[in-house]
């Protein structure tokens, strides 16, 4: 292509393993990009909640990215955000009903955070920055990677917080009756402590690797 267009990514790179792995590790939404912090802090007080939230978000991510990518040539730029939000909201409602059908206890535990997937910046970000410019298969694979990455991040937080805060994993007691749970881990400060500790550990590991410095890691700081 010789004529410059408004589209910054006119050529489609080949589908590689990196399309998937990008979101899982190098640009992990929770541990590297620091996106979606609101549900991350709120629902990771147990492994089960973290896993359910991660999978629900991954489903919405994959479904909406597929549809956005399918419609990318039809949707005019002027109404794209409205279209994406409607698509994301539809998939979120589907997940909302599905979780109510699976377990009302789980639905009660996740509370409003299922509905709030609509405004999750990871999903709108992927739709805008990736799916609106790539073929369906690329978008689905990339969304799956980001979904796995988000679930991984939540599970890493939820596992530690449940283990220390309740002395159990998936509701199964691990430490026996003599264990005094650290209640603070289930409260909001515990979420920040655990996330901070994970980031410290991961950045330290990254810094030790030759040829990489922690400063080169892109850090984005968004509110939600």
């Amino acid at each position, binding site marked *: 292509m010789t004529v410059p267009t*408004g589209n910054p990514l006119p050529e489609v790179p080949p589908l590689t393993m990196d399309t998937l792995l990008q979101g899982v590790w190098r640009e992990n939404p929770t541990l590297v990009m620091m996106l979606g912090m609101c549900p991350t802090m709120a629902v990771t007080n147990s492994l089960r909640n973290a896993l359910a939230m991660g999978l629900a978000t991954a489903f919405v991510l994959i479904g909406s990215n597929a549809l956005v990518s399918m*419609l990318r040539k039809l949707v*005019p*730029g002027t109404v794209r955000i409205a279209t994406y939000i*409607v698509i994301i*909201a*539809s998939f979120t409602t589907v997940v909302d*009903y*599905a979780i109510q059908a699976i377990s009302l206890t789980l639905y009660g535990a996740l509370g409003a955070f299922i509905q709030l997937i609509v405004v999750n910046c990871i999903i709108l970000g992927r739709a805008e920055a990736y799916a609106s410019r790539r073929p369906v298969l690329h978008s689905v694979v990339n969304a799956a990677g980001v979904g796995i990455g988000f679930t991984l991040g939540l599970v890493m937080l939820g596992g530690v917080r449940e283990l220390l805060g309740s002395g159990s994993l998936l509701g199964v007691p691990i430490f026996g009756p003599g264990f005094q749970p650290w209640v603070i881990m*289930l409260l909001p400060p515990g979420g920040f402590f655990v996330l901070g500790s994970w980031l410290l550990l991961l950045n330290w590991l990254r810094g030790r690797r030759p040829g990489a410095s922690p400063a080169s890691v892109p850090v984005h700081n968004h509110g939600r």
Partner: protein
Amino acid sequence: MTNSAPLPPPVSSRRMLATLGITALVSGVLVVSAYEINRPQIEANQRQALEQAVFRVLPGARTHRSFVVTDDQLRPLGDHHAEGVVVHAGYDRDGKLVGIAAEATARGYQDIIRLLYAYAPDCQCITGVYVLRNNETPGIGDKIATDPAFLANFRALAARLNSDRTALAHPIVAVKHGKKHAEWEIDAISGATVSSRAVGKALNDSAQTLVPVVQRQVTVLTRAPQEAP
């Protein structure tokens, strides 16, 4: 957008409308089919959750029937389009009334606490409490749902009527831990007095109006299983 960037070609309003219209249509189909597919399961879950809670506060009950309290009358739920407080009567294997279960709510430390409590008309007492929903502080206030010593308060908490049978003779109250002296008082959890008081308030608010009706209409409840299909 800066002036140097090439402007995108103008989009006709018809195309914008069509795009949004089609998206809304697709969205509508998706949401409605998800709702229709999941509805039977969601309703079954809700029924099961209610039944589990009713049988949990009324151990010994094998079947239950629901009633609505309207204008000081107990009417079977479903027969009338009546609005009001719903109570669930539990019956044992022989069809004898075990007790009734009703919902009670009060504002706790964080959010509304929803309880299901059992009331036994023959002993005029509250015989069990099950927390349906609470957002109390984990490890402190949420002990109202699990603390065995606290739940022991509700094995036979007096809820007797006064002499003119219009309200409770003694309001149900939660008192500070270790200060319980009367059989209508609830011994609060140490460190979770606010949540414990909320439980007391919820029970009192509900029982003050419900117990007089239930006692007056207890025959409606006891003959219910024979009428059941």
